[in-house]
């Protein structure tokens, strides 16, 4: 009885939902979406609550160092005797803050730039050539260039992910725009006399969103890898602040003395990547259903 009521209430709300949003949400009713979202939820909660969970902070040095895994220190201790679990969770904070700030912005800016063709054909073509140049640089090389200009740190990582992610979003938006332009409902809107920008926001952007949203969730994973990659070569977040990449970088140096050093941070990195991959998969299935 209550079940039925709940379901009908649910129906009522979904009916009022925008169909685009409803489609994205339907991704999280699939097994992959559920697992991915749960995993991501646990990681996010841990990262947000890090100061509560580990009130001592990430920089507490101890007397012993480079021990293996133990009950007191599940991930072991690092070269300065700091608890690796604490540092991994604090590192996760940095990573999540990076990708949650950079990737959505990157997708949005990329999409807007990709739609520049709507303003003028020449501008659209020019932006695409700019994207060609960005794609020409591998993400890491781009990051190294940026570090050279503004110095290593969070900002450089943020900008690297932001810039590296734009071209794909832009290309997808442009492709959707080109395809949508000859769709009859877009022509119908033009014949009615709907202003250009309204045609764009009402008819073209919602239909371009699908691929960009899926692409965005894939870029979350790529963002984590860019951070790790730059940090491994020492150009990411600077010590003593931990990030997953920094921890892996340090772990590599001690791989002979403490082979288990890498396991903890590596596990968190993998879990994060798996969570986003599952979500990307589920979204992709939901929008292409």
């Amino acid at each position, binding site marked *: 009885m209550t079940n039925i009521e709940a379901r009908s209430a649910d129906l009522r709300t979904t009916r009022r939902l925008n*169909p*685009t949003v409803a489609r994205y949400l339907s991704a999280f009713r699939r097994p992959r979406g559920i697992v991915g979202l749960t995993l991501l939820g646990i990681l996010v909660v841990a990262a947000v609550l890090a100061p509560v969970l580990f009130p001592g902070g990430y920089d507490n040095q101890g007397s012993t160092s480079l021990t293996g895994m133990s009950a007191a220190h599940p991930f072991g201790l690092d070269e300065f005797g700091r608890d690796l679990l604490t540092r991994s969770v604090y590192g996760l904070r940095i990573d999540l803050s990076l990708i949650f700030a950079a990737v959505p912005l990157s997708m949005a800016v990329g999409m807007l730039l990709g739609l520049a063709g709507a303003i003028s054909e020449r501008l659209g073509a020019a932006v695409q050539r700019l994207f060609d140049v960005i794609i020409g640089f591998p993400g890491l090389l781009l990051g190294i260039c940026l570090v050279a200009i503004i110095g290593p740190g969070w900002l450089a990582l943020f900008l690297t992910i932001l810039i590296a992610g734009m071209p794909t979003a832009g290309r997808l938006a442009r492709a959707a725009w080109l395809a949508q332009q000859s*769709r*009859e*409902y877009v*022509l*119908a*809107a*033009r*014949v*009615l*006399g*709907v202003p250009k920008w309204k045609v764009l926001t*009402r*008819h073209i952007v*919602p*239909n371009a969103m699908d691929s960009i949203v899926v692409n965005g969730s894939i870029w979350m994973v790529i963002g984590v890898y860019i951070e790790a990659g730059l940090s491994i070569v020492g150009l990411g977040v600077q010590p003593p602040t931990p990030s997953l990449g920094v921890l892996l970088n340090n772990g590599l140096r001690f791989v002979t003395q403490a082979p288990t050093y890498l396991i903890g941070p590596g596990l968190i990195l993998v879990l994060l990547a798996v969570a986003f991959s599952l979500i990307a998969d589920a979204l992709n299935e939901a929008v292409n259903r």
Partner: protein
Amino acid sequence: MSNPTKVRPSEVRSNNPDTGTALLRVRNLRTEFKVGQDSVKAVNDVSFDVNPGDVLGIVGESGSGKSVTARSIMRMVRAPGEIVGGSVEFNGEDLLLLPEREMRRRRGSGVAMVFQDPQAALNPVMTIGAQIIEALTLHGTDKRSARRRAVELLDQVGIPDAAVKVDQYPHQFSGGMRQRVVIAIALANEPTLLIADEPTTALDVTIQAQILRLLLKLRTELGLAIAIITHDMGVVAEMCSKVAVMYGGRVVEHGTVEQVLRRPRHPYTAALLAAMPRLDDERLGQPLPAIPGSPPDPSALPPGCAFASRCRFVEDGCRHDIPSLLQIGGEGQLSACFVAQRGVSIDVEPAPDQVPAASAEESRPVETVPALEVQKLRVDVGSRRRGLLHRNPPVYAVDSVSLAVHAGETLGLVGESGCGKSTLSRSIVGITPVAGGSVEVDGHDVTSMGDEQLARVRSSVQYVFQDPYASLNPRRTVRQSLAEALSLRGLRGAELEAESHALMDRVGLRREYLDRYPHAFSGGQRQRIGIARALARRPKVLILDEPVSALDMSIQAQIINLLEELQRELGLGYLFIAHDLSVVRHLSDRVAVMYLGRIVETGTAADVYGHPQHPYTVALLSSSPTPTVEERTREQIVLQGDLPSPANPPSGCRFRTRCPIGPLVHPERTICAEQDPELLPRRNTQTAACHFAGELI
């Protein structure tokens, strides 16, 4: 063509051990599609026979199960579809019981299939020769003789220069030629039965006539039996000896073409025949007796007769029990209808309960200024793409076209695909840029399409698109779609709400539907929404770009009636674009015939259809299939070849390369190649662009 003495014994359903001479015996065939817990009965207890030399037509609308029937015979139903019962006996052996290996051997050599879309049926990266050879070698022919046979086959299906063409790729062929190639592949292993699934639906009427002729020729030459699946009663009338009418997964009527078309015994067939506009229609200006409702959803069939909810003769029993297919009338005519089986006559014309419509001949007040006038319009579709330094030469898809539409009047524009009719209409509303000439709306020149001029066009000329599925944004509700149009008129809030209600009433949709998304509607309903949206701007002229050709046959009449009603009540002017000549005849006051970017003939509908002056018009009329048996004997003028490319139109008269009275037949008529004929007044109201106008009737 038909052979009444060969008609099968009446009781098709009986399991009579006397198998007779049937080449193909389909008995109680059932094919279901599993969707979750439910199974959709796509083909439900279908039985029919095909005898050697027969041409059986299987007619039905979308969702009637006709294509699934064909695929079931070939055992080509893909999962989640599954053949769950019945038998398909071919030459006495049940195909459904054969192991897959054996079945593969029968496909092509016993039963062959021709698909609807020749574009999709051919592999674009293989030469057509290679594709025919593949079909041959698969069935054991050696490579060398296979090539010789391939050329032979291409020759047989009427492809000129077969020895050269055999090494060409599909993209080098036109649509009609590709369909010939597909037929050649089907014939490669000398099948005795050819199943053609909508073989001409993707083609123009003049090409359709060529392909139908070819099929009939092959039937006589090779002694083939043909089962042709179609939605077009005209094709059936022209081609077939027997016909099976399908509705809701079942055969509802079966008989010889003469029996079924002269005296249909099932209300569906009768209603369908009555609702179709005809070339020789005498019901001009009257609403067509449209069938209410829409075809049933195969996943939600009613418990009784599937047609019951739309039937004029419906009784209580029809809603609960399913009638079986029993003999009624002449030998071999079967009908699945309780009412007809009781002996009630199923008359073709329903009792006239319609309002006496205004007569078409009623003289309309002639307005001096046309609501829409186009003069010497040229549209260039070639030079838009330019490289860095070079500009492509112009290609005029529309070349010096003049026409006018007055308020309250319908101008029908007919022509084959590629003749430029859609380009013309899109340039009138400013979607495609104009290269020359002028467009005038209400006497104001709007050719340059500046902001102010566009605003004028948009508030007086609106467009209804062909495909009701593509012309509505799937993510916006009907309310949103209408509001978008209404808000451009400055309406807000309660006013806007009231106006959307009025629009829904006007096009015959319920107001509650406003909050639904397009996917919840059938094709006919969507087209109504498309019309409502166009009306929201209160236009004076509607451009109707093939508004009914994407709809099911039983829905077309509803939309045609709606359009006529709207014209009467709102005094709209229509520019009605279509390739279906009978629909144009029914709706139009005047007709313009277009060929390769030019108008070749104009005049009142009665004159143009009654006494066509241009040979192209004559050929179009002659190629257009009509659903009457009486027409079967008429001499057909079948045009040769294809529409030339507008990038390189023939010199002089553009039609001369296909003209049945031009230099092809009369080599002395050099004037056709030298002088471009002008559109000059000929007979009564007619103008025609031909040096020898009126010669061919």
